[in-house]
């Protein structure tokens, strides 16, 4: 019992070790859509290893003039990317310093329009779907390389679908906004029309009503 304990312990340790060492370059990242209120700033942080390439794509979907400020800072506090009032952009960078990188979106220049922003932050390369696929010693067979080609092509298709979905969302938001605006302005203009015509008549009537006592006094 006692001798078995250290053996199973060491087996577990070895397993742990193996799992830890299997870690290769890993993909991390997130794709999120959030709402940024007016005069606000929101920051996101991610831990990046040294030498790993990361990319940030962002797009403003709704709100105001569809623009936002964005900046990316490395762990030492240097600003490695800064853009103001951009509608969409893509930024790639190879991390020189290991640590927490932060990227922020700022709507501080706007006083009343809140914006919906989509961003996609990718770190590293894509991992294989099975752990041991990455440690191949032989070349891929024809079937496998065909699968890889199809996979890459489908990824492009899905990327393009996302791009179109975002643009469509933007256009649809504008169209719905326009629809509402037409209603409100039309009602407003009708009301203004009535108000103006009534007050014109009343004003004219008031000019002529005052003169009457004066003319009668003159005649008498």
């Amino acid at each position: 019992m006692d001798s078995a304990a250290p053996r199973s312990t060491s087996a577990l340790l070895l397993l742990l070790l193996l799992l830890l060492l299997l870690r290769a370059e890993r993909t991390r990242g997130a794709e999120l859509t959030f709402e940024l209120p007016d005069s606000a700033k929101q920051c996101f942080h991610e831990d990046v290893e040294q030498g790993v390439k990361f990319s940030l794509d962002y797009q403003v979907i709704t709100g105001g003039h569809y623009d936002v400020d964005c900046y990316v800072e490395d762990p030492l506090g240097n600003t490695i990317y800064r853009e103001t009032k951009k509608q969409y952009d893509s930024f790639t960078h190879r991390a020189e310093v290991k640590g927490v990188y932060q990227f922020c979106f700022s709507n501080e220049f706007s006083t009343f329009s809140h914006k919906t922003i989509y961003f996609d932050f990718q770190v590293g390369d894509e991992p294989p779907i099975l752990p041991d696929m990455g440690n191949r010693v032989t070349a891929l067979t024809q079937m496998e390389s065909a699968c890889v080609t199809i996979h890459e092509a489908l990824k492009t298709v899905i990327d393009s679908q996302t791009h179109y979905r975002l643009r469509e969302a933007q256009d649809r938001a504008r169209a719905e906004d326009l629809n509402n605006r037409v209603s409100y302005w039309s009602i407003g203009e009708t009301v203004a029309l009535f108000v103006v015509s009534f007050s014109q008549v009343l004003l004219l009537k008031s000019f002529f009503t005052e003169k009457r006592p004066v003319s009668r006094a003159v005649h008498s």
Partner: protein
Amino acid sequence: MRTLRSAVLRGQEDRRRAVVTAHARSAPGRTASPGSEAPARACAPGEGREMAGVGARGRLVMGWPVLLLLALCAAGARGLYFHIGETEKRCFIEEIPDETMVIGNYRTQMWDKQKEVFLPSTPGLGMHVEVKDPEGKVVLSRQYGSEGRFTFTSHTPGEHQICLHSNSTRMALFAGGRLRVHLDIQVGEHANNYPEIAAKDKLTELQLRARQLLDQVEQIQKEQDYQRYREERFRLTSESTNQRVLWWSIAQTVILILTGIWQMRHLKSFFEAKKLV
């Protein structure tokens, strides 16, 4: 012995939940398979190499792996994180087709005012997760612990809103009102766990690749159906705007003419009464 085993099991459980996604939507192949990535994700890089040296020594250093494992799995950054205030609510929008599964994982860390550092884990701190469908109906509204995983499947296509807010008021007293939330949301076929599927259906590597391609294609099909539905909505909105502009313009012109006629008639009768005309 027991502590080590439970620590390992807990570590594996943590890793299974530590799904760090790659691109949730546009790179479906980048599915985070917990088996391969979890250990890496859960633990900081330098400490892994430390573990290697410690490995085979025996009972004396048995305590080390446990501590290291705990430290690694607790302190490792699980991907993207952001800071949230005490009663602040953070909402994220996911525009998805129908019958799509969404899995979200989050982990919270409280700010320790004295040590000026984020504590690795905070039991007792809860987050309230609320999910609304495109019509505004609440799909999911539940309280989770400081670390949680929520799942829902969309039944209507459109923009779903996922809102998180902390339910704890202790934060203001102990934490200086700051909470770090690690969040990861996976949509559709990114939520698939390929090693699990391979094990369950006993698929070879090639069959698994084919399965991944099938999933990707299915997602593309769903997205295209959704696109058709969106385009129809867009078209209805545009046609409605067109109709409104047309009818309101006609109505306003008619009202203008009628008002003009009324004005002239009223003023004429007024002046005739005053014997000025």
